[in-house]
């Protein structure tokens, strides 16, 4: 597998608590899942996807995790049109 070079902006993931380590009072569907954290930063040494990696964050702290994403980006949008909204408050025109 190809390695990602030092200095690349990446996201790492870490299991904070395994299912058996989680808070005692959570609903059953949540209790079955691990408690997971993701954080972005610059890669401090070459690493491959899915392998342990160390990053430096925007505030200069160093954190460890599993390399999850290269160049994590925001892709959220306004979504697909919701036709139910269009004629609200208009002067009419909807056939």
């Amino acid at each position, binding site marked *: 597998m190809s390695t990602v070079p030092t200095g690349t902006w990446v996201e790492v993931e870490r299991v*904070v608590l395994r299912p058996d380590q989680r808070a005692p009072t959570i609903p059953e569907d949540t209790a079955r899942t691990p408690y997971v954290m993701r*954080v972005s930063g610059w890669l401090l040494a070459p690493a491959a996807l899915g392998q342990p990696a160390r990053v430096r964050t925007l505030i200069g702290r160093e954190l460890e995790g599993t390399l999850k994403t290269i160049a994590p980006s925001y892709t959220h949008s*306004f979504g697909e049109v919701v036709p139910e909204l269009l004629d*609200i408050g208009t002067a009419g025109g909807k056939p």
Partner: protein
Amino acid sequence: MKRDTSYAAVMARKNEIMKASLGIDYERYISSPVAFDYERLMKDTGYSLDDIARTQRETKVGDTPLFELTRLTEAVRAISPRGKGATILLKDEAANASGSFKARRASISAYEAKKRGYAGMIAATSGNYGAAVASQAAMRGLKCIILQEVYDSQGIGQPEIVEKGRKCEAFGAEVHKLTVGPELFYCLLLTLEETMFFNASLYTPFGIKGIETLGAEIATQVRARYRRDPDVVVVTHAGGGNLTGTARGLLEAGADKTRIVACSVDLSGLHMASDRDFNRKSFTTGHTGFGIPFATLPDRADVPRNAARSLRYMDDYRLVTQGEVFYVTELLAKLEGIERGPAGNTSLTAAVALARTLDRDQVVVVQETEYTGAGKHHNAQLSFARKMGIEVRRGDPRENVPGKTIVIPERLEQVTGSEQSMDKLRISYLKNAAKAHPVKKWTDTDKAFVAADVKKDVAWLESALREL
């Protein structure tokens, strides 16, 4: 020395971590499991209203415009009985740095953190507050870490939450994006211990003091323009800080006849810590999933005693459906020519319904707006809901079922909301207090505190306790 980082061990160190990260010794104020000296805790921050306004001006907070929503008021009058239809005003809090009233809340914490020599600050939050802390930290030259619940176990985050996380990073914060669960608090404690940063909790006296200027500005602006005090101020309610701070500011400005109406989106039936339900709600704050538990047990917060105590100031509590808020959001754009985000539009929805029952010469104030944009937009939320299998249609909003169906009204007349019984909330508060400390051990001080905390007198309390 390597400390034990297991869930139980960290939770057991809660008090010492809190003390170091807040610089407040709550023991000085606590007199029993149910009572503490609230006013002294607030006063000991040392800030007057003027001090706060001055500090906030340094970091682009406050002095926001108050708009009259003339076309929306006309539309309400057209469907109201003769002589009814109050003027609807909107306090444009989106104009604060970071785009919401939460900048007021973060501003004093950032100022304190800087003054006391902390290198940075941390907050655990659903979003807007994170952006506010990150923005204020940026202006004060402090480092910032935000812990945010973002994803379900499939790694899916709803658009509004993702947008709020983006905004925190845009201001230079390190953002920990977590899956669903109350262990956010555990992570907060761990990170505080590790970094020795300031705990910019939502619920400290600094946070609540920062909101008081919002109430005071409303009183001043309404008086200057309408020659009267606001008759009703409608406040979107979740953790209760928004309501508490605003009401305290109104009182400080002498507006003691103004009715304080809380409003939340009704999400009953959905569990806030459920991995499945997480992405089946279209509102990330200002909903009953926070609003009811925090009103009835304020000290469930991440500090030893919560400075946000909404029942102490609340006169009424209105619930609205998701569909009603989406309808009114669309009307705001089409009639008033402004787009604003979901939380402020929640109280706008209740205000529209309330205005119909108030006299024409009365004034109802929607106490905040928040920014809107990609992700944080009703079209994005509805489109996402549809993808998650939620039915979206037009019709009678009473057919809304949280997590299953969103019914957007067909006409303004259908926007009515519903009433949440105040006495039910008060009784539920008393039951929680009784669990924390058996009633037979309550002293006169306890009783006076509890009565004030539910906005009642001791005679009411005695009779309610007999029936508990």
